[in-house]
C-alpha cells in the first residue's frame, strides 16, 4: 500500500482519459487536485439495478457516495454538472476474480540445501500468507483496459503457485487514492504444479492441498490445547498454517481457478472432503456441472469470454469428405453449446458472476452480446456484472446498484448498454470520472465508425515466404466509388520477370484486409487469397494458394492514397 502512495504522483501523469480541471498552483504543485468532489449528472436515463426499467433522473454524488437521485433534485453550488440527456447510466461492473494490476513477485532464491522432492513451501508455490495488495498497482497492467470496459471494482488474485495467497477487493479508482476496499477476502488456489519440484502435477497438487489443510487443522487443535492446558509443548504454527487458518475456520472461501468441468469437479470434490467455502473462478466449460454446482452451493464466476470462431470459420464448405463434414458439425455443435452455457446457468437459477482471468478487455462487451444472443437475458447479464458478484464478494451493502448511500460507481454509455452501437463514454469509479473517446457513427449508419477502417489505398510493397523461397512485388489499391480496385505484381511462375494481375473482391473491415487474384500457371488457373491485418502502414498476413497451403506475407504501404 505504501508503494501505491509513492507511485501515485508519477503514475497519475500516465493515466489518460482522466479529467483534470485543476490549474497549476502553489498549493497543488502536481495540478492534480480536483476543484470539486461533488458531481451531478443531469437528466440521464438511469438503470438503477438489474431488471429495472430506465428512468430519467439526475444523479448527485459527493466524495464517492451517491447522495441523491431523482427528477427534481436541488443541486449544491459546488456540484459540477455533466449533461446526461443522451446518456444511459448503469451500476459500475464488478469483477469477481481478476489479475488486472497484478505483477508476479520474483521467485525466492533456492536455498543451498534445496531438495526438489521436499522444497520449502515458499518455493513450491504454497504462499497463503501473501496478499494481492502487495502485488497490485492501480497503474498496472490492464487496469485501465478493464475500467474502460466498465469495471469499477475487482477482486484481484495474487500471482504464484498452487496456493498463491489471499485475494483483495480493489476499487479501480484514482491513482492518487488508496484503492483497497477489503484485504484477505479469499484464499486463491489452482491446480498448477511447481516447476521441477514437488508437487509437480495436478495429482501432486491435490495431495499437497490435503496435507496443508489437514496440518492446519491439527496445528489449530494443538494451539487450543496449549492455550487451555499447562504442560503442553508449544505449538509451532508455520506461516502456511497461520495463513490457512481463516479458511479452515470458515471465515473466508477458497477461490479455485477451474477452467474445465473436470477441474470444477476436482475442486468440488475437495470442498466436499473438507467442507470449506468454495468459489470457482474462470470457468470456460461447465455445461455438465451446472447441477453439481447448484447442489453443492458453490459460488461461480464464469470467464468473461466466448470461444473464438476461428475453427468454425476455417471449415471449408466444398470438397470435404462426409466423415470430415460430420466432424465439422460436431465442432460447430460444441461451439453453439459453448455460447449457450451462460443461458443454461440462468435457467438453472445459479446466480453467477464473471471473472476476467485470461479474458480480453476489448472483447468483453462483444462476449456479453454473444451470450445474450444465445439466450442469456439482459437482466441476468447485468446482474452477473453487478449485483451477483457484489453478493458473492459480500459487498452488496455499498456496491452493485445505484442507490442513495452506495458508492458512486457507474458505467455511462451512449445507448442501452448491450446494444451493438452502445459505447462507453464515462466510467465513474469512487466518484472519480474517467472519460473515454466515443467514435462517431458514419453517415450511412451501418454501425461502422468514421475512423473504423484502415487506410488501404496506395502503393504497397509486399514480401511472401513460400517453400520456394522469398518473393515479392507491388500492390496498388485504389478506391473507385465505394469499391476498391487494383493490381498486384508477382514473380512469373514460368520464371520470366514479373506478371501483373488485377485484384478482386477487395474488402476491408476494421483492420482486416482481404482480397484475391488469379494466377495462371502451366495452363492451370489458381485463385490466391490474401488476408492481413493492418497496423499503421504495415500489413501482416497470409497468402493461401489453393490446396498448396498458406504462407506468411508482409506488406508496407509506401505511397498512401495514391490516385491512379
Amino acid at each position, binding site marked *: 500500500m505504501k508503494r501505491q502512495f509513492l507511485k501515485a504522483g508519477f503514475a497519475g501523469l500516465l493515466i489518460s482519459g482522466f479529467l483534470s480541471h485543476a490549474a497549476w498552483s502553489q498549493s497543488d504543485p502536481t495540478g492534480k487536485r480536483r476543484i470539486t468532489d461533488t458531481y451531478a449528472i443531469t437528466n440521464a436515463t438511469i438503470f438503477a439495478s438489474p431488471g429495472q426499467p430506465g428512468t430519467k433522473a439526475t444523479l448527485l454524488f459527493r466524495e464517492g457516495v451517491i447522495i441523491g437521485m431523482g427528477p427534481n433534485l436541488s443541486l449544491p453550488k459546488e456540484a459540477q454538472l455533466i449533461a446526461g440527456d443522451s446518456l444511459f447510466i448503469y451500476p459500475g461492473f464488478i469483477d469477481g476474480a481478476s489479475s488486472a494490476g497484478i505483477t508476479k513477485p520474483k521467485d525466492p532464491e533456492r536455498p543451498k540445501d534445496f531438495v526438489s*522432492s521436499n522444497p520449502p513451501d515458499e518455493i513450491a508455490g504454497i504462499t497463503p500468507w501473501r496478499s494481492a495488495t502487495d502485488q497490485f498497482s492501480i497503474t498496472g497492467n490492464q487496469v485501465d483496459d478493464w475500467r474502460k470496459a466498465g469495471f469499477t471494482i475487482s477482486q484481484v488474485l495474487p500471482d504464484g503457485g498452487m496456493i498463491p495467497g489471499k485475494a483483495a477487493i480493489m476499487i479501480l479508482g484514482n491513482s492518487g487514492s488508496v484503492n483497497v476496499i477489503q484485504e484477505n477476502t479469499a484464499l486463491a488456489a489452482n491446480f498448477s504444479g511447481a516447476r521441477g519440484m514437488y508437487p*509437480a502435477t*495436478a495429482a*501432486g497438487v491435490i495431495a499437497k492441498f490435503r496435507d496443508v489443510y489437514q*496440518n492446519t487443522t*491439527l496445528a489449530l487443535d494443538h494451539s487450543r490445547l496449549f492455550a487451555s*492446558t499447562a504442560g503442553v509443548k508449544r505449538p509451532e504454527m508455520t506461516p502456511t498454517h497461520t495463513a490457512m487458518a481463516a479458511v479452515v475456520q470458515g471465515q473466508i472461501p477458497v477461490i479455485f481457478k477451474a477452467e474445465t468441468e473436470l477441474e470444477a*469437479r476436482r475442486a468440488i470434490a475437495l470442498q466436499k472432503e473438507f467442507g470449506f467455502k468454495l468459489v470457482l473462478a474462470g470457468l470456460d466449460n461447465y455445461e455438465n456441472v451446472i447441477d453439481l454446482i447448484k*447442489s453443492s452451493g458453490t459460488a461461480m464466476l464464469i470467464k468473461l469470454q466466448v470461444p473464438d470462431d476461428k475453427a468454425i470459420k476455417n471449415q471449408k464448405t466444398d470438397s470435404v469428405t462426409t466423415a470430415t463434414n460430420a466432424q465439422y458439425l460436431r465442432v460447430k455443435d460444441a*461451439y453453439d453449446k459453448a455460447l449457450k452455457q451462460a443461458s443454461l446457468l440462468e435457467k438453472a437459477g445459479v446466480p453467477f458472476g464473471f471473472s476476467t482471468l485470461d479474458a480480453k478487455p476489448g472483447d468483453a462487451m462483444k462476449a456479453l452480446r454473444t451470450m445474450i444472443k444465445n439466450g442469456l437475458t439482459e437482466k441476468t447479464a447485468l446482474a452477473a456484472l453487478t449485483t451477483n458478484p457484489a453478493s458473492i464478494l459480500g459487498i452488496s451493502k455499498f456496491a452493485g446498484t445505484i442507490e442513495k448511500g452506495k458508492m458512486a460507481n457507474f458505467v455511462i454509455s451512449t445507448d442501452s448498454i448491450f446494444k451493438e452501437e452502445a459505447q462507453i463514454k464515462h466510467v465513474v469509479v469512487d466518484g472519480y470520472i474517467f472519460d473515454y473517446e466515443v467514435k462517431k457513427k458514419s453517415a450511412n449508419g451501418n454501425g461502422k465508425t468514421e475512423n473504423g477502417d484502415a487506410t488501404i489505398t496506395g502503393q504497397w510493397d509486399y514480401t511472401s515466404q513460400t517453400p520456394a523461397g522469398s518473393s515479392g512485388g507491388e500492390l496498388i489499391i485504389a478506391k473507385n466509388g465505394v469499391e476498391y480496385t487494383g493490381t498486384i505484381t508477382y514473380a512469373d511462375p514460368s520464371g520470366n520477370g514479373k506478371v501483373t494481375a488485377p485484384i478482386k473482391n477487395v474488402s476491408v473491415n476494421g483492420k482486416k484486409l482481404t482480397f484475391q487474384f488469379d494466377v495462371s500457371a502451366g495452363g492451370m488457373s489458381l485463385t490466391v487469397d490474401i488476408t492481413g491485418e493492418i497496423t499503421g502502414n504495415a500489413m501482416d498476413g497470409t497468402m493461401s494458394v489453393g490446396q498448396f497451403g498458406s504462407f506468411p506475407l508482409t506488406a508496407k504501404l509506401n505511397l498512401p492514397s495514391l490516385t491512379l
Partner: protein
Amino acid sequence: MKKLNLILAALLGLGLNYSNAQTQKGNVLIINATVLTVTKGNLENTDVLVQNGIIRQVGKNLSAPAGVETIDASGKYLMPGIIDAHSHVALDVVNEASSPITSEVRMKDVVNPFEIGIYRALAGGVTISHAMHGSANVVGGQNATLKHRWGVKDPSDIIMQDAPRTIKFALGENPTRVHGRGNGIQPKSRMGVEAVLRNGFNEALQYKKGWETYNAAKSQKGNTKTPPAYNERLQTLADILDGKIIIHCHSYRADEIYMLINVAKDFGITKLVFQHTNEGFKVAPEIAQYTMGASVFADWWAYKMEVYYSTAFNAAILQRNGAITSINSDSAELIRHLYHEAAKTQRYGGLTDEEALAMITINPAKQLGIDDKVGSIEVGKQADLVIFEGHPLSSYTIPQMTFVDGVKYFDIKADPDDQRQFVSATEMVEPIFLHAYENHQCLQDVDEYFEAFQGAFIEEKH
C-alpha cells in the same frame, strides 16, 4: 436412467453428488452362446440372464422377464469382460515424478472419463482397467481400478468404487534414473531402491505409533499430548503394512523381485503383485509361494538394459509353477487385443484355453482383489461380458458386443466413427493416430518434469 436419478434426487431433496450418484445397471438375456465361464468350464448353447447389472442365471432355455432385451448369440462365444491389470488409460496425470515416495498421490483424483482410449478398450472387450501411477518413483501413487462405463461425465462413475486400494511401486532403472541420475538423490542404485523402501516402512511404523499414542492419550483427563503432524505419505505406507492396500510393483530383474519378496516378508506384507516381471521365470516358485502373482507382457522386451534377459515362455512358466499370472497391456494400443496377447501363451508354452483366458480375466481380477465380483461368468457376479465372433483365442476372432454391469457400451453393429465424448469448440478436428509403437506410458509426464532440471533423459519409457 440418468434423468431418472436426477428426478429422484430432486424429489428426495438430495444434492446429486459423488456419494449418491448411481451408475447405470442393465438387464439383458443373452441366448444360445458358447459360454466360456473361465472358472466353471465351457457351456454349449447356454443362456445368461442379467438383471440389475448382476448375472442371475446361467442355463438352458431361460426366458426373458418382461421388458428385458434378448440377444441371440447363436454361433458366438460369450466370455467374462477382459481385465487389464496394468494400464494408464483415462488418466490426466500419470507420474508425480518429483519424489522417490509419493504414496499420498491418488490417481482417482485425476481420472478423465472422456478419454477415447476407454472406448477403444471396450472395442477390444476390456471392461476393467487398472489405471496406475507411473514408474518414476520407488513408491508411486495409489492407483484407480476403472470400470469402462463409457459416456459418463463424472470421473467417480468410471471408478470401480467397490475395488480395494492398490498402489504402484517401481524397482530398477526407472526410479534410479529419475531420482539418482536425474536429481542426484537416493536411489542411485538397486541397493538404494531397497533402502528407500525399508526406510519408508520404518518411518511409517513410527508414524503409526505416534498416532496410536496420541489417540490413546487425547481423551484422557489432563492430556498434554499433542497431535503428530499429518502425513498421508506415511499413513498410506502404514496402510500397506496393515494389509489395506495391494502393492503392484514394476519390476524386471529376478534379483530385484526377490529383494522385494524379502522386504515384504520382513515387514509382514502379503498383498503383493509384480508387474512386467520380465525375469519372473527365474523366481517363479518364490513368486508363487509368497505373492499374489505376476502380471506380464506376452512377448515384449529389449527396450532397455534390464529387459534383455527375456522369453516368451515367461507367462507359461510362471503359471505352471503355480503363480497367479496375468497378461497386461501398459498401452492404449495393446489394450485393444489382450485376447490375442493371451493366446500367445498357447504358442509359447502350450497353455490350455482355460489357462490362457484366465490370464486376462479371473487372474487379473485376483491380483486386483475383485475376483469375488468379476472375472468369470458365475451367478451373482457383476455382468461384465463380451460376445466374440469366433473363439477369443483364435487369430480370426472379432469382439461384437461389450457389456459392463449388463449395460452395452460397445456394439460393432452400432459403432459410429466419431465416438468422442468431448469436442473442443475452438479447434479444427485433427487427424487421430493410433500409436502402434513406443507408447508405453509408465514414464509419462516425466520428460516435462525434467525439462525444468535441464536433466539429460533417455528415450525409453516403459
